[in-house]
């Protein structure tokens, strides 16, 4: 078994506990190990249990899905793992969405493509343990050795006597047994999988095509009112005073509540005026009748043009704090036979999930019940405690399906807002929904950034030295959220002499992680510049990368973290060279291929884009993707969709014209007309090839996105000779 599989196993101190379902059947709980002091603090018998599997007497298997579903398919793929090791038929499985209870279920989090690597082994063990107990129960019933029994599609068979029983027939007896030691569990070999690796339709899909109300914004409760939350017109604005009488008299309006936050829009509660009405549209209409005085002084000067000028100055100064220095970059850059420099930049962009931010809450008798489309429910709970002093034990948090995440719902600002409202209206359920304008102007944006690159090329065309001065946002000590650099970014570790340095400027704008955070921007800048280096060195980017990667080995990032496997990188690059027929260049003028590679979120992806340019119009014809996310694609149905979506997302970031701009802290974009998303007519053909080494499976929400952007911009250069050094792509008309 590969070494890294062990890391994700249930702790050896974990024990299993079985219990009877009401009405018969087995419920198998996994006791998650806690530090001893935590258990003692809870008192004897306060062991908190984690329940994933239950089997009713009719054989129906219910599997709890613990993580938020944002479109990444985790609500289907984690239960698939359990079901496979349980060896039941997928058709007899029902999926139930768990409420937030991390003590019971472990981490409940959607972000960073982390769930698959973290939960792969525990989910397998959970399924295998339940199967072992069912086998033991049948063995006792029939007076045979459990080793003589086999399972298939939810039935137990005894070949010698020809007897068989459905899981439901022995589930009650199994529940009375002592669960097995984890060390005694036998897991399937990959060739024995019957669910894992098969294309499985999403567990909510049949409800979605019928229009059933399963999203956060579809939550409907008796007596529920609808709310909007009017915030300052600029980031960092504070509420001074509000004239609310006219809004209060507006049709359908029940309450108008000025709410003074805690001055921390980033991780607290922003000031705002809540309008609560019998319909969301009526609440939203009443906004125009508010007369609010805001203090916008903090936002002065926080304009895109000012940020650009500051970045220019920082780059011109040449200064910057060193993040990583290998060898002698200064000397080697100066001594190199040739030196090339280039500057790259990219804008702030919004997440714009199609379901705007929303949350529903009811506060009554000191208890708070929340229905939240969030990627980070536990952080929401922690933030409620921090902002309002709410006891987490007094909160029930239901996870609602999210209409897209992309990192936006890692932050729970909307949850703070609806709770601020619900606390004022005890007993009344309140649904807060943001307008699209709210959603665009109050995002936690992928921050813009600027890069000044230098590369030294030796006499034989080899890369001898490399540097990147990165200008980003932060308070001078730490970078803003998701505005950091990755000191392991290639070619670090692959070139002897290297400097990465950083300058930062403050911002009042809230920033955050967007799908493939960091990588979505760093890959564009670095793989585009390396394309310039490759051409200057008389080669092309895939072959420069293969040369730099050298022998197959693992490179540990400075300060620890996930190692970079140069062999896995080589394999995806060689695969996409083959699948895209890279050596064959399109014959038509103005049409060409571009390449890029990136390693992010444990996934290795190499991509080739074929595009043509006519005047200012770019057409992407085809994208070839070669990816490595380990030995096993859990649900090929979902995996294929994730890759296509990531490619389409990346291309739209570059080509659709996405940029969020500020004037004195006020966002200039408002809706999909001026912050455009991908649409069907621009969708290229996508070809996907997998490389499947004997490595533990990893996540797929993110790593296919980053290379799509520089593969496109490198194709545009190859087609036109125009180097795209700034996003979004804006070509002059011919």
């Amino acid at each position, binding site marked *: 078994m590969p070494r890294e599989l062990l890391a994700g196993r249930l702790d050896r101190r974990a024990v299993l506990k079985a219990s009877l379902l009401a009405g018969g059947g087995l419920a198998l709980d996994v006791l998650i190990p806690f530090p001893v002091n935590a258990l003692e603090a809870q008192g004897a018998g306060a062991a908190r249990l984690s329940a994933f599997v239950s089997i009713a007497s009719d054989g129906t298997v219910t599997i709890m899905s613990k993580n938020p579903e*944002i*479109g*990444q*398919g985790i609500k289907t793929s984690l239960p698939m793992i359990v079901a496979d090791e349980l060896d039941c038929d997928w058709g007899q499985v029902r999926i139930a969405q768990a409420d937030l209870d991390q003590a019971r279920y472990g981490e409940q989090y959607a972000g960073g493509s982390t769930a698959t690597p973290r939960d792969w082994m525990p989910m397998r063990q959970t399924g295998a343990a339940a199967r072992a107990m069912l086998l033991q129960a049948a063995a006792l019933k029939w007076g045979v050795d459990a080793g003589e029994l086999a399972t298939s599609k939810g039935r137990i068979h005894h070949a010698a006597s020809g007897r068989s029983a459905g899981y439901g027939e022995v589930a009650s007896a199994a529940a009375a047994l002592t669960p097995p030691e984890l060390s005694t569990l036998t897991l399937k070999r990959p060739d024995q999988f019957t669910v894992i690796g098969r*294309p499985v*339709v*999403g567990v909510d*899909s*049949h409800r*979605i*095509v*019928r*229009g059933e*109300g399963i*999203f956060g*914004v579809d939550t*409907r409760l008796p007596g529920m009112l*609808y709310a909007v939350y009017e915030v300052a017109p600029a980031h960092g604005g504070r509420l001074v005073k509000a004239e609310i009488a006219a809004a209060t008299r507006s*049709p*359908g309006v029940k309450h108008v509540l000025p709410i003074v936050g805690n001055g921390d829009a980033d991780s607290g509660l922003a000031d705002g005026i809540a309008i609560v009405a*019998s*319909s*969301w*549209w009526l609440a939203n209409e009443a906004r125009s009748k508010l007369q609010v005085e805001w203090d916008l002084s903090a936002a002065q000067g926080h304009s895109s043009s000012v940020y650009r000028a500051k970045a220019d100055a920082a780059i011109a100064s040449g200064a910057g704090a060193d993040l990583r220095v290998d060898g002698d970059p200064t000397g080697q850059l100066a001594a190199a036979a040739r030196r090339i420099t280039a500057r790259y930049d990219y804008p702030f962009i919004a997440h714009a*999930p*199609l*379901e*705007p931010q929303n949350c529903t809450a009811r506060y009554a008798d000191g208890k708070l019940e929340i229905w939240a489309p969030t990627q980070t429910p536990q952080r929401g709970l922690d933030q409620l405690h921090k902002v309002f002093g709410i006891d987490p034990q007094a909160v029930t948090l239901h996870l609602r399906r*999210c*209409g*897209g*995440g*992309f990192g936006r719902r890692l932050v729970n600002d909307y949850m703070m807002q609806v709770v601020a409202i619900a606390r004022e209206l005890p007993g009344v359920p309140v649904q807060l*929904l943001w*307008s*699209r304008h709210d959603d665009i102007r109050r995002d936690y944006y992928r921050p813009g950034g600027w890069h000044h690159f230098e590369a030294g090329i030796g006499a034989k065309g080899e890369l001898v030295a490399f540097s990147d001065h990165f200008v980003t946002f932060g308070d001078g000590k730490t970078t803003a959220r998701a505005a950091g650099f990755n000191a392991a970014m290639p070619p670090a570790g692959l070139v002897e002499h290297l400097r990465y340095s950083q300058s930062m400027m403050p911002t009042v704008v809230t920033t955050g992680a967007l799908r493939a955070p960091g990588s979505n921007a760093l890959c564009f800048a670095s793989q585009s510049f390396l394309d310039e280096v490759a051409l200057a060195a008389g080669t092309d980017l895939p072959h420069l990368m293969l040369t730099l990667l050298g022998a197959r080995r693992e490179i540990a990032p400075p300060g620890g973290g996930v190692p970079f496997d140069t062999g896995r990188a080589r394999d995806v690059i060689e695969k996409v060279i083959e699948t895209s027929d890279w050596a064959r260049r399109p014959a038509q003028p103005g049409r060409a291929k571009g390449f890029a590679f990136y390693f992010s979120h444990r996934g290795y992806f190499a991509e080739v884009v074929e595009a043509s340019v006519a005047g200012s119009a770019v057409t992407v014809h085809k994208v070839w993707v070669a990816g490595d996310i380990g030995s096993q694609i859990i649900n*090929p*149905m*979902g995996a*294929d*969709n*994730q890759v*296509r*979506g*990531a*490619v*389409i*997302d990346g291309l*739209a970031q570059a080509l659709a014209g996405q940029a969020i701009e500020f004037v004195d802290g006020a966002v200039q974009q408002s*809706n*999909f*007309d001026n912050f455009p*998303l*991908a*649409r*069907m*007519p621009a*969708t290229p053909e*996508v070809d*996907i090839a997998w490389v499947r080494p004997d490595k533990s499976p990893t996540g797929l929400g993110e790593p296919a996105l980053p290379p799509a952007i520089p593969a496109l911009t490198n194709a545009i250069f190859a087609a036109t000779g125009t180097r795209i050094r700034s996003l979004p792509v804006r070509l002059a008309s011919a």
Partner: protein
Amino acid sequence: MRYRLNVNDATREVDVPPEMPLLWVLRDELGLVGAKYGCGAGLCGACTVHVNGAAQRSCQLKVADIGQAKIHTIEHIGATPVGERLQQAWLKIDVMQCGYCQAGQIMSACALLGRNARPSDAEINSAMAGNICRCGCYHRIRSAIRIAAGLAEEDGHAA
């Protein structure tokens, strides 16, 4: 104002201001939450419903202008032969990721097949260009329409 609307072949009464968009009548007054709010400006198509069989953005239709027009929503579409075929095709290749836009996509696709039973890919692109899928499921949306129209055999999940 009181209005009598013909929604999913039933008469429904509401008492709302004349300017209220149909989307919010459906969602907040009638409890039909299948049509989704995405932009409020007719830019994304998540709120698409049928008005006398034609795809319309319900966020842009004032209740006062609807009169006796026949409104059909995603909740009803499975009762029509084309709608049912589209739902089955959507499930066959599991079109969706987050799924939020899919009600609007199916309503637009259903209107397309209602007026053009065998659309070309270019006609599909044109008819569906007003419906945003933020997750980028466009290959599968196109394939599902082709499957429902009988233009393509199931070509696997890698549509």
